[in-house]
């Protein structure tokens, strides 16, 4: 009951006061402005990528390896085939390890570990790993597998660095969706006389599957865009390579080296590669969205 409301008019106490109207309008405008501010860099990035990168796209751009002739203005610098395929190979290899292991850890945490001290410890370290800067994973692999063994860069070492990067993301996202599966479903399956492993494989995982796929795709998208873990684990090379034990090119590393080139055409290629990388990740995100829309967990 606002003090200025005339006591005779009993409707007045339900009326919105002008002061509250002003505050409401102010708050609405403020958050709209905040949203616009956040959109500005996003739109600029997309705009620059399209305007600068699209012109370098061509069939040759995707089907030829970089030539390395970057010193002369008119020499043929080649495309990004090796980088594109290298990224796909290393991310696929990383996913092959990180996805099953990560989902296994998540299932264990939710279905078996629950609140035990060991499970809590695992959760704590997974959280810590989520926050570790990606270059640290690269550094770890560099020290352990390159300095430690005295060997050279290799695709699989890059893939392992990406695996370490993906693991905590996969575990965390899978754990969250597994916990969303209503406990009533587990109980009714157990009450039917189903052994626990069958409950997990036939009820819990299928129910959580769309959400887990989303989490996995987001982890893949994250790994695909990382430069730091690959710089000194997989190296940079020109040739397309299907052997994971040799140097392997990747889109982020290619972009990194192209941007630092003084030749305009090479710099141009960096824009094209960046656009290709963004489109790749955008597609993965789109798929993730489509899959999560099929989620059956209310």
């Amino acid at each position, binding site marked *: 009951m606002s003090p200025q409301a005339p006591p005779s008019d009993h409707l007045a106490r339900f009326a919105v006061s002008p002061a509250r109207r002003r505050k409401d309008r102010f708050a609405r405008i403020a958050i709209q402005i905040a949203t616009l501010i956040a959109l500005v860099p996003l739109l600029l990035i997309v705009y620059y990528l399209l305007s600068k990168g699209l012109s370098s796209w061509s069939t040759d751009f995707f089907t030829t390896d970089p030539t390395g002739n970057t010193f002369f203005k008119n020499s043929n610098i080649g495309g990004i085939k090796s980088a594109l395929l290298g990224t796909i190979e290393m991310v696929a290899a990383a996913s092959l390890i990180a996805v099953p292991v990560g989902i296994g850890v998540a299932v264990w945490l939710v279905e078996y570990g*629950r*609140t035990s001290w060991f499970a809590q410890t695992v959760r704590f370290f997974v959280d810590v790993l989520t926050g570790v800067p990606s270059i640290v994973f690269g550094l770890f692999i560099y020290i352990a597998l390159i300095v430690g063994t005295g060997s050279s860069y290799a695709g699989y070492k890059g893939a392992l660095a990406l695996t370490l990067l993906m693991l905590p993301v996969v575990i965390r996202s899978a754990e969250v969706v597994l916990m969303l599966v*209503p406990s*009533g*479903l*587990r*109980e*009714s*399956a*157990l*009450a*039917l*006389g*189903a*052994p626990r492993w*069958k*409950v997990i494989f*036939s*009820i819990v995982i*299928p*129910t959580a*599957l769309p959400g887990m796929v989303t989490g996995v795709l987001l982890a893949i998208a994250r790994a695909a865009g990382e430069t730091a873990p690959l710089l000194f684990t997989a190296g940079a090379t020109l040739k397309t390579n299907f052997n994971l034990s040799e140097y392997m090119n990747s889109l982020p590393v290619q972009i990194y080296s192209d941007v630092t080139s003084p030749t305009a055409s090479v710099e141009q290629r960096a824009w094209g590669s960046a656009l290709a990388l963004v489109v790749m990740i955008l597609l993965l995100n789109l798929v993730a969205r489509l899959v999560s829309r099929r989620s*059956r*967990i209310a």
Partner: protein
Amino acid sequence: MTDPQTSRLVRDVDPESTPEQVPPVGDAAAATEAPTGASPNGAGRREPKTGFSVTLEGLRAFYGDAEQVKGIDLEFRANEVTAIIGPSGCGKSTMVRCINRMHEEIPGARAEGRVMLDDLNVYDPSVDVVSVRRAIGMVFQKPNPFPTMSIYDNVAAGLRLSQGRRGNLRPRVEAALRSAGLWSEVSDRLDEPGMGLSGGQQQRLCIARSLAVDPEVILMDEPCSALDPIATLKIEELIGELKERVTIVIVTHNMQQAARVADRTAFMLDGQLVEVGPTNEVFTTPSDPRTEEYVTGKFG
């Protein structure tokens, strides 16, 4: 302990070497309780079938250190409907969940005492908990069909999950859906998701799901509390039909429901059994003043 009737519940019986000692339960039960009508090798036959009695002996249940069920002795007679009534938090659900050993699924929860399924203590260390749950079905408060599965697959789920059956389960699915009074409503859309049914239909689907594995006892934990009156009525009619084949224990908040469906009613208060008897006696001439206060609506 390895009486043929209950021997399938004991883990160390080897089904490979002693198949004839582990007859299908429907026939085993019939052989014991109706010896004249039973044939020794009618493997494909599932009728007539009877329920098992369940007897609680000094049952105590704990959540961590908190004792929720404080020593209950109670018999649920075979092929009767026994209703458990009592105010919220009195331990009704906990007690019922002890019968099929679902209570121990909750972290930190444990139970003491004995639960006799016919002549087998389901808490005996040699008993396989999974087989106990096959023999004692459960219907929960909230209808919970498996969301990834069709109507058909929901009913078949128990057979596939607990008995590892493959192939054509359609006769058993149809029989279970008929028993649950749902067949006529879903026979033309068995492939549609179970979640697409109405709440009452979902609950009958859950009943069909638990019937499909041929249990001897069905526990119902407030099966109608999420349903409208018409759906409730259908479930209640169904309970009346099902007791021909199974023993039914139903937890309910609704005293009228207990009066409508139950042969016997047990009144619980604060983790203890106050009284049990024929339903009309418990409601009209209770022996304990607390029961009278509760059934006349003075508390709870």
